[in-house]
């Protein structure tokens, strides 16, 4: 049988020492040996979205970490100052539970923040070429015979409510309901809530519960610290106060903590309240802002088809429901076909024409299957560093139809700069409504988000920061 012969030849060839690629003839055996000498690649190395990966694919982040270092810094600094300056006093005057509770809350906050930032928010992998071709064929079949391009939407009936599914030009598929394409990360994310720069990642189906727990526990922490600091000040006797005023550092530290906590408490409490409302009605920030189900955008009264009509069940399903798996399989190894299709495999393309026949390739490559070798990654999965920027919050789908390039798209620094601690949600909500008409988040223009020209006025900054090569067409 053919396979057996192939195998025998290989074993004989192996008995000869030093299998260097160059002296061997360019036959299947030679090609195979060359392949097996290369490193295996994992799927994250050829991931098409604009994400960054660490620890060999275990950690996933958005391309720009946003203000995550600031968030972490603020939390750490405030908490450490609290433990150093307030705890000793309060333990002495009140109870030892104070640092215990504070410590527990602090640990909770940091863990949930890290999980929100570094986990997969529910990214949908892009359609394979075969799938994309099949969808295109269906669209063309369904289209009319005029010269106008066929509509790229599909209507489905979900719980007796008509929902329009839009076609994503970047991912080449019809987006499932509640899925939205994040232009910053260049991925479709399931149950897309928003892209949070404070956390440096999208918030979607898989990490919404981490995000919610983070903001709730953070509001408890800031309220707790605020309460402790004011208690400390209240309990300080007159004489101690005079001494403290002389100690410039201690006085300023108290003031700093008060200021941070005061602003944080109001904004984070407000945000927690808003998200509690969303959880109870099984809505996403995206849907709430666009008014998908409140009847604002449609003529008829639309109801949320995903709601279970019961607050308790809604909360449970969002926060305690089964944890969906990650669909992108970051740490899986590439199969032989994927290796050949991968963009870095430039040298590989030269080898293919030299082979005897396609059938023989199948025998050779498929038999090696998962252990197919690969070249070491030539560059990190960084692509098109230019388009990303600090787009604070919501990626608008509604404005997509307005085919302007990403000029006015980004929520300008005004939204970012307002109130250091104020969460960009609230401001972005107002700002979004203002810019909705003129803005376009450059999501789904033909050719996807890559080929569109970088947004003017911001790209120079991004280019300087990113310093990566121009986008591939």
């Amino acid at each position: 049988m053919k396979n057996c012969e192939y195998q025998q030849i290989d074993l004989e060839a192996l008995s000869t020492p030093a299998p260097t690629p160059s002296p061997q003839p360019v036959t299947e055996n030679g090609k195979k040996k060359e392949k097996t000498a290369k490193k295996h690649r994992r799927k994250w190395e050829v991931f098409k979205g604009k994400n960054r990966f660490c620890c060999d694919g275990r950690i996933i982040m958005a391309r720009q970490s946003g203000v995550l270092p600031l968030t972490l810094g603020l939390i750490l600094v405030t908490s450490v100052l609290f433990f150093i300056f307030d705890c000793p006093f309060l333990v002495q005057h009140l109870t030892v539970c104070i640092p215990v509770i504070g410590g527990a809350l602090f640990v909770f906050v940091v863990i949930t923040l890290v999980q929100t930032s570094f986990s997969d928010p529910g990214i949908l992998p892009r359609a394979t070429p075969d799938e994309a071709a099949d969808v295109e064929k269906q669209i063309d079949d369904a289209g009319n015979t005029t010269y106008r391009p066929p509509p790229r939407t599909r209507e489905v009936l979900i719980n007796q409510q008509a929902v329009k599914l839009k076609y994503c030009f970047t991912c080449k598929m019809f987006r499932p309901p509640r899925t939205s394409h994040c232009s910053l990360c260049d991925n479709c994310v399931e149950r897309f809530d928003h892209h949070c720069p404070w956390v440096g990642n999208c918030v979607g189906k898989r990490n919404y519960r981490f995000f919610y727990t983070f903001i709730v526990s953070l509001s408890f922490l800031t309220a707790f610290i605020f309460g402790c600091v004011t208690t400390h000040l209240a309990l300080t006797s007159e004489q101690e106060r005079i001494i403290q005023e002389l100690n410039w550092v201690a006085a300023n530290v108290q003031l700093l903590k008060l200021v941070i906590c005061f602003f944080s408490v109001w904004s984070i409490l407000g945000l927690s309240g808003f998200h509690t409302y969303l959880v109870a009605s099984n809505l996403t920030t995206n849907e709430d802002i666009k008014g998908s189900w409140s009847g604002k955008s449609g003529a008829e009264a639309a109801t949320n088809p995903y709601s279970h009509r019961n607050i308790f069940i809604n909360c449970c399903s969002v926060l305690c429901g089964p944890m969906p798996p990650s669909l992108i399989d970051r740490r899986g190894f590439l199969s032989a076909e994927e290796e050949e299709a991968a963009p870095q495999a430039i040298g590989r393309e030269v080898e293919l024409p030299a082979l005897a026949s396609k059938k023989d390739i199948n025998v050779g490559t498929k038999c090696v299957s998962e252990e197919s070798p690969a070249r070491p990654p030539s560059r990190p999965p960084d692509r098109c560093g230019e388009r990303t920027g600090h787009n604070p919050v919501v990626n608008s789908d509604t404005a997509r139809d307005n085919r302007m390039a990403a000029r006015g798209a980004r929520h300008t620094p005004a939204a970012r700069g307002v109130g250091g601690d104020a969460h960009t949600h609230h401001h972005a909500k107002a700002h979004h409504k203002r810019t909705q008409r003129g803005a376009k988040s450059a999501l789904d223009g033909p050719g996807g988000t890559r080929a569109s020209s970088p947004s003017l006025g911001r790209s120079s900054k991004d280019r300087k920061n990113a310093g990566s090569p121009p986008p591939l067409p």
Partner: protein
Amino acid sequence: MTPPPLTPTNHRKVQLSHITTHSLQDLRQQAAVAAKVFIQRDYTNGTVCQFQTKFPSELETRIDKQQFEETVRTLNNLYAEAEKLGGQSYLEGCLACLTAYTVFLCMETHYEKVLKKIAKYIQEQNDKIYAPRGLLLTDPIERGLRVIEVTLFEDRSLGR
């Protein structure tokens, strides 16, 4: 001649013989792909993972309609079981919340357990029913739970 020492390259060769004589499915990989059919998701019940049970016309000559619909229905039931909101999932969720979700790092979730069941079921179906007819089902998880990909191979007498 003494057998060569087990280096990574010849270890793979040994695996190779194991693979090629293992199952009909691998012999299928030598056959040329004639077409691919995609079974899309069915969203009438919301965002839960369900696939359309409509029988695609390209498979009419290859497989019995009942058989195929049975497969898809079983898959739908399995996915429904994975995403079921019940006592067990709530318990898991609450426990996870209390531990700041660190249990997900050490414990396999209910969903993952069901996914393994699904993978086994698809493998079984492929071996028993689909491979003999020149078809191959791809596990939807490899396609991001978007489609069930059915690969139609050229009808040869290979392996029959």
